[in-house]
């Protein structure tokens, strides 16, 4: 009997666990470890942060789901991984402080990101002056602060809103883009838009970069850059923007930034929602002699090394290749350890990196969206199933971000009759300039804005909640 331990219950971990159990049945153990027993549908936290969706609609308890599927659940955080010893195990720390050694034959690290607010002084809702929508508690706090700003506007006090990224290497611009549009839409709906100044700040080289190097798509008989679309949405709604910027520090009511030309600036705000940079979740990796071997398993930012070409990071942007990107997602040294979703270390950014004259790196880091996380979690699960059932020595399945496409639905206002969303499909996620002149297959790379996009976004919320609950026919809903 093999034991597969999955760390994390996000899109990557939950998809992996459900698929593993479905294929392996009662013959093998699937153990899931996570400090939170709730699944969080992160994409809808944008709506929670503006008060247009109740927080509980984005969450559900995983315990009954795992019980029904025969998955063992441990509500605790992985704090140490011992990959070397005869019995490979994870040390799990429970909420009451107890620890347990959980043995594994295969391990999937799907712990997502550590939200690295500390990278920018004054950033973040806990110890800083900005809000965030990356977790449910933060999103609820953001909503409350937004409501306070609304009250002030109702009393005739003009408010300044700043939304974007809080560091030169942050990712998840898409989420911030959704938030700024939902904010504008909500203010409009409340008749308060004329009382607000709204400004976007981001580390993207140009609007619409989204950390995927932007997108060229077919539209109305033209090949057109996504930059034009992103800018047009801001122009239409009177949103000002600052791009190519690294936020140096956030203080009460203001932030300082520098851009790639070295120009320094300051934005004053009454409300700021800034996405932090991500790092790997802090877990210790210890060999059989008790030595710290984290550097063998992780890159300096703490994300787990997989079958990517990390040496390619030292090469210039022009020399990056699709083969730099991982395909199988297992660690080259400890081949029974996999990383899925945000937890795996990309070889380098997708977008071109720039530096401010003082050497500050400014680049939108590569997103690993919910869809990509689900696909990778599923792929890794299928490989492990083959390794167990067929005795395969190496992972048998591959899914590179340079091979598969993505569907991104960017909410721009939540209403079934007046709302809208930008629907963008791209194939592949990482542009492949060796294969396609414009980096992507233009037959599958497309973008549009409208109410139907919102309906799709809304439908996906319920579809994925259904799938993640492992309900009837869940396996037929694509990742």
């Amino acid at each position, binding site marked *: 009997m093999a034991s597969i331990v999955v760390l994390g219950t996000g899109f990557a971990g939950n998809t992996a666990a459900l698929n593993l159990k479905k294929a392996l049945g009662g013959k093998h153990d699937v153990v899931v470890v996570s400090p939170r027993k709730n699944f969080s549908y992160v994409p809808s936290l944008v709506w929670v942060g503006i008060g247009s969706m109740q927080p509980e609609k984005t969450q559900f308890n995983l315990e009954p789901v795992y019980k029904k599927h025969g998955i063992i659940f441990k509500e605790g955080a992985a704090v140490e991984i011992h990959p070397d010893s005869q019995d490979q195990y994870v040390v799990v720390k429970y909420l009451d402080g107890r620890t347990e050694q959980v043995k594994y034959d295969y391990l999937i690290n799907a712990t997502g990101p550590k939200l690295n607010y500390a990278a920018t002084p004054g950033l973040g809702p806990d110890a800083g002056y900005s809000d965030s929508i990356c977790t449910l508690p933060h999103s609820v706090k953001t909503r409350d602060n937004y409501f306070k700003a609304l009250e002030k506007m109702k009393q005739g006090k003009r408010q300044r809103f700043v939304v974007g990224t809080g560091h030169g290497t942050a990712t998840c611009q898409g989420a911030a883009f959704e938030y700024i549009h939902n904010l504008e839409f909500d203010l409009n709906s409340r008749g308060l838009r004329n009382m607000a100044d709204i400004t976007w700040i981001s580390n993207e080289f140009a609007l619409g970069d989204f950390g995927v190097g932007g997108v060229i798509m077919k539209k109305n008989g033209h090949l057109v850059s996504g930059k*034009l679309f992103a800018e047009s949405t801001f*122009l*239409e709604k009177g949103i000002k923007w600052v791009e190519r910027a690294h936020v140096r520090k956030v203080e009460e009511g203001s932030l300082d930034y520098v851009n790639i030309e070295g120009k320094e600036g300051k934005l004053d705000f009454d409300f700021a929602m800034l996405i932090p940079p991500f790092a790997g979740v802090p877990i210790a990796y210890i060999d059989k002699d008790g030595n710290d071997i984290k550097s063998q398993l992780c890159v300096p930012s703490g994300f787990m090394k997989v079958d990517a070409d990390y040496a390619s990071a030292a090469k210039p942007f022009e020399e990056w290749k699709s083969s730099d990107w991982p395909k199988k997602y297992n660690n080259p040294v400890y081949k029974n350890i996999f990383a899925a979703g945000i937890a795996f270390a990309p070889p380098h950014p997708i977008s071109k990196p720039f530096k401010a004259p003082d050497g500050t790196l400014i680049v939108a880091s590569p997103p690993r969206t919910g869809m990509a996380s689900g696909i990778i979690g599923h792929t890794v699960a*299928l490989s492990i199933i083959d390794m167990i059932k067929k005795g395969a020595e190496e992972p048998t399945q*591959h899914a590179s971000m340079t091979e*598969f*496409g*993505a569907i991104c639905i960017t909410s721009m206002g939540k209403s079934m009759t007046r709302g809208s969303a930008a629907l963008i499909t791209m194939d592949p996620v990482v542009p492949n300039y060796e294969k396609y002149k414009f980096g992507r297959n233009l037959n599958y790379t497309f973008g549009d804005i409208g109410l139907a996009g919102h309906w799709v976004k809304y439908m996906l919320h319920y579809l994925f909640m259904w799938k993640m609950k492992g309900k009837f026919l869940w396996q037929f809903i694509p990742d």
Partner: protein
Amino acid sequence: MEEKSVKDLNEYVPYSKEARSFMSPTKYSVFIRTFIPWQLAKFVYYNLKMLFVLSKGHGQFLDK
């Protein structure tokens, strides 16, 4: 929303950062974005489009 858009277009500044790559929806585009019969057709179209992307680039690839 449309009024806001017109107001911004009135603020158009030649040679400004925005003017260098200018694009803005016309009244018709803004209207059609929430015109329900058209959007119902788009909804069907989007779902088909997504299925194409999923079938082409989605899922796992067995090693040959």
